[in-house]
């Protein structure tokens, strides 16, 4: 920017030109502020979602720019929440972008004092082996009175109230087929 544009853009000049002689308003406003836009304005898409915390089920709008979440706020269309959020819901972005979030598998072998890295597919494979082994060792085909049991008490599952219905469905479906019955979650009533 050359001196020629600099001078007129100098707020003092704008003051002299009148309108805002005291430099309390427009004259004092920087060009940056003049062109200010909310960061959501440039969003690539606005995704309709639901708050992950309690069971009220408030509507959320998730603003995405270049594959990054730029803002999560209440969805005014929701007849439940009317666009409002509690502190937890309002902190959703802070949560999904938490500095404490883990992005890699961590593995701790028996008696170890440190975590190790492990590739996801290997982890899944090892887990599958553990499940099959434990199931085999603890299988109960029938009880002492010869009644059909067809089950294992060798492993248990916990969790579900924070998960999706579809996920709970697969958990229950698969583990039941495996003969596991100790499938539980936060909700006992």
């Amino acid at each position, binding site marked *: 920017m050359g001196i020629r544009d600099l001078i007129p853009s100098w707020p003092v000049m704008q003051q002299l030109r009148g309108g805002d002689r005291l430099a309390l308003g427009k004259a004092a406003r920087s060009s940056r502020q003049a062109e200010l836009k909310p960061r959501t304005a440039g969003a690539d898409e606005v995704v*309709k979602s639901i708050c*992950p915390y309690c069971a009220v089920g408030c509507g959320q709008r998730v603003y995405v720019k270049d594959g990054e979440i730029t803002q999560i706020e209440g969805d005014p269309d929701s007849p439940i929440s*009317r666009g409002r959020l509690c502190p937890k819901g309002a902190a959703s972005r802070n949560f999904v972008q938490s500095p404490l979030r883990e992005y*890699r598998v961590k593995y701790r072998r028996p008696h170890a004092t440190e975590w190790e890295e492990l590739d996801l597919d290997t982890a*899944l494979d090892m887990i599958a082996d553990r499940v099959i082994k434990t199931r085999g060792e603890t*299988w109960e085909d029938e009880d002492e009175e010869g009644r059909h049991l067809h089950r294992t008490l060798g492993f248990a*599952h916990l969790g579900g*109230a924070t998960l999706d219905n579809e996920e709970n469905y697969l958990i229950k479906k698969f583990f039941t087929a495996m003969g596991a019955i100790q499938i539980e979650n936060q*909700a006992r009533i």
Partner: protein
Amino acid sequence: MDIGSNMAENHPVGFQWVMEARMRGATVIHVDPRYTRTSAVSNMHVPIRAGTDIAFLGGMINYILENDKYFEEYVKAYTNAPVIISEEFRDAEDAGGLFSGWDPESGSYDTETWQYAGMEAQGASGQREQGGATGEQAHYAQGGDLEQGMPPERDETLEHPRCVFQILKKHYRRYTPEKVEEITGISRDLFLKVCEKVCENSGRERTTSFAYAVGWTQHTVGVQNIRAAAIVQLLLGNIGRPGGGIMALRGHASIQGSTDIPTLFNILPGYIPMPHAHAHQNLTTFVERNAAPSGYWGNMKAYTVSLLKAYWGEAATAENDYCFDHLPRLTGDHSIYPAIMGMVDGWCKGFFVMGQNPAVGAANGKLQRLALANLDWLVVRDLVETETASFWYDGPEIETGELRPEDIGTEVFFLPAASHVEKEGSFTNTQRLLQWRNKAVEPEGDCRSELWFMYHLGNKVREKLAGSEDPKDRAVLDLAWDYPVDEEAGVDEPDAHSVLREINGWDAENNALPGYTSLKDDGSTSCGCWIYCGVYADEVNQANRRKPASEQSWVAPEWAWAWPMNRRIIYNRASADPEGKPWSERKKYVWWDEEQEQWTGHDVPDIQATKRPDYVPPDDATAEDAIRGDRPFIMQADGTGWLYVPAGLTDGPLPTHYEPEESPFENALYGQRANPARQRFLRDDNPYNPSGGQPGVEVFPYVLSTYRLTEHHTAGGMSRSTEHLSELMPEMFCEVSPELAEKVGLNNGGWATIVTTRAAIEARVLVTDRLAPLKVQGEETYLVGMPYHWGSKGVVKGDSANDLIGLSLDPNVHIGEYKVATCDIRPGRRPRGPALVEFVEDYRRRAGARRVGVNEGGGS
């Protein structure tokens, strides 16, 4: 009426409607041991001693009955008040707090004598063979053949001494305002004021609503607490009507969904019970013994067969009983707590934990962590490393030296999960609304959804078992396990829509089913969860409907989808009188339209659309057709709301006041101190504090309660990981009254150590008038209040309140008593290292801490 919950604090956005109602003149009453953020904006705060809700509600029932405040027409037509009960039934009033059928040896009830007169055998058999029913199974085989949908013996005048109405009257006669004051600490005046308000606000023109949460459920009388409220609401005619009801304020995004499509041991999707080993040789006997022929459960076979088809697809045929024997069998309580004990004792070797944090969130935290430390393998899936994943190197037991990482043989897999915006799927909220979440971004790194994890784990296991001849592997290999994956994301994420469609179900032509009424028991339909049938009607994901509230009626039927059949208020037929006319213009909701010859209104009527109000079922009718047109409670065999529960509960047909497992007081109403049928674990690693009337009670003189704060979420994994929330409540604290602070020398802002026989933890002190002492049975009682959000990980750290709580459960649903215990509190920080163990040991010695009192359950 907000009781047993702290709605403003834990459901702030839902609370906006309460505030709006208040602005329009509604009275908001908050019954809570503490003066909370809810009390602050309520019209009345009613301080109650933790764990005495039944005394309070029982008193209210007594007030309603003694002063004839009940809604007579409603009660006579819509409840089982007129039904006459078996003459063998003995009420707790006559037996020191025990109902008939108590068996001291097994410590449980034989419920045979609780049945309706004239139909014992059937009801009972279904019961006994269940080996303990649960709350989710309260629809059990009650009834048998009802002539014209009516129980055999009734007295419409409600005069008969053995009719439910009279039994109710007798049972609660001693729950007088004076008794209520003596037990709950609520002054007589205040109690009566509440009763008046609630009654004034009920009837044809007005309705009263109850809101509760875990303040009611997390007790050894959890189910009966809610039953008591149900009785009040049925007597006042506040069920099935707008502005009425009993609202469960649930704490997790899809906790409702996780009971509908359960990750629970005792039920299958849609509240179909898991089969018990001895009771169910085959599908037919299973259905017979679990479903009444009348009421919608009369279709249980269709629901079950369709589920088995969804599970095992082609493999499920009429010939093989639709793979009924692929289902594992129960032989008792297989809930998480016995499983945890099993881990400690070594017979449960593997553990999957997904989006839960028992190391902090579960009672007797030490026991929980010892269980984890004794596993062969542990898989933790979460967004952040929780205390459950890190117990082996930074748990409290490591600090005290009770455990050394080198000695812990558990193999731990931590798998990072995808957040709610990195996957798509549906949550079922607290009002049974299925709401779909669309995916905003792809998960980073190894982060994956549980959908991905289960699907691909399933594939791996199936690959490894492929070709196995072992019969036990059939169920795995027969599984219908083929979901389209979305390649473009590059992580082979299974398509959640297709899973939801399987849940909805399809017919023989593979068209999505419109609703559960079209389910068949001949294997021609498949449905993963009958109550969700219709969520994918017309091949459309109904849960993803987002018509703006401003563009539809106040019921907003086109926002998402509510089960069943998109009904927003269930049993809403009760919003009209027996003739089908609205009780009042003001409370109009659904009604019978004579011209159209059908039910209509603001909501989807919860009754067959064309069933006339005066419909009387022919004797051969079954299922819903066996329910009269003037009976709204269509899930029940007799179509009525049960004031008295003849079957389905293990601890009595009527709510009765018992003291909590741990309480400084004896039972002021009965010789029986605590719920006799409550579930306890009498073992060294789960000791209980001595209670009223037992030696050593003075060692733990104060009442302890745990709760949540607006600023945090449950075990903290979702809040202590965010700076925004952490800074608002940066440290673990306890709340005490100035009186208690004076008594034990606590300073505001200072430190205190709170002790039970399980553990000792430290917390900063808030001295506040919000926890006023209560006068109970003549003495001042002091409450120590504690949020339970803290642990050893996160932006902010602190001791976990749940370490203090012992494991004693409600016998119906096996929920733990988290809301009340006894404790001691002293100034200063807790000892560190081994000294802490010694410190707690010393308390145990002084209290002679029991595993004792084994027979105490049996009514000493």
